[in-house]
């Protein structure tokens, strides 16, 4: 069998593969598009609620100045995070237009950006904790909460609610960074395969 003959024979067998149910595919694509839109809308909505809550704290006349400063810091953090998230997602809305090698390089750049984002996330969370502890420092001294049952239960409640979130946040970031590093290694291996 000559070279061209092999390709023709294999091509015939290859093209005899069954096709796909287009109606099913179209329904699935439509659902996925709606899910993507819904995810972004929810994220924006949740951040808008967070900004609105911090703004309420800033504008409330009965709130101490230091807590207003805390609210301003939190608002700045939420807005910065949202801008960074939208920037990171910007590339994923566009479908690939260039060749696979370019796309793999783009994927590698996105993966590196994802690692940076996770670091920013962990840093932002750490910053928020430090700012919160600094602002709340006067209430956290033992002489304050030892003689104030209401303050004591409030601190306990805050710890019970926020500690798991903080731990989960840091663990999540560490897991994501580890996963993205593995992904980056895979992308680089594929890039080498493509260049061969």
């Amino acid at each position, binding site marked *: 069998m000559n070279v061209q003959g*092999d390709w023709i024979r294999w091509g015939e067998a290859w093209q005899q593969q069954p096709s796909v149910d287009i109606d099913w595919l179209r329904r699935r694509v439509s659902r996925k598009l709606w899910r993507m839109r819904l995810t972004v809308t929810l994220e924006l909505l949740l951040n808008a609620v967070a900004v609105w809550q911090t703004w309420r704290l800033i504008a409330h006349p009965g709130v101490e100045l230091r807590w207003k400063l805390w609210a301003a810091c939190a608002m700045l953090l939420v807005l910065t995070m949202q801008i960074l998230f939208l920037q990171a997602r910007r590339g994923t809305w566009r479908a690939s237009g*260039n060749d696979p090698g370019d796309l793999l390089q783009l994927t590698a750049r996105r993966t590196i950006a994802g690692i940076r984002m996770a670091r920013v996330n962990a840093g932002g969370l750490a910053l928020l904790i430090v700012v919160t502890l600094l602002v709340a420092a006067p209430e956290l001294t033992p002489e304050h909460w030892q003689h104030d049952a209401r303050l004591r239960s409030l601190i306990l409640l805050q710890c019970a609610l926020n500690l798991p979130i903080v731990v989960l946040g840091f663990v999540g970031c560490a897991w994501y960074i580890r996963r993205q590093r593995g992904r980056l290694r895979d992308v680089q291996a*594929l890039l080498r395969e493509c260049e061969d």
Partner: protein
Amino acid sequence: MRQGEFDALLRAHAGLLSRIAASYEADAALRDDLLQDIALALWQALPRWRGEAPLKAFVARIAHNRGATHVIGQMRRSPVGALSEHLVDLKHGPVEYAQLEQRRRCLQDAVRQLPLGLRQAVTLALEGFSHAEIAETLGIRMNSVAVRLNRAKGALAAVLGEGA
């Protein structure tokens, strides 16, 4: 882009898309997911198509790009992948179908075992693309296409148990 135009495009290239998806993923459920991703990418990319390349080459390029990203961390090299329930073949009887199916699966598995660069060139060659069209679609030189196809042919023949 109108829904009707997209439907027509999917119908015209359904075979090409499912075969490219099959060259990247052996697992039926993951292959369905990949097909959805490819279709979604097409829906997003088509408004940018200006007719500078043939539509079939454009569709193949988008599918391969999506396939390449799918490979990262997702590739399964199962020797016996079950057929998706969404795949349809009404042309053949049961015995003929079984024989054809065995040949297809052997070829699919052999193609999936190729390194990414060779696999992309091979799937396009099997779809009937010329060397120039493969070079254009993959963004490589024509002589690289010839080298890749030559290397792939040897590998395919070895896996399929045929003398190269």
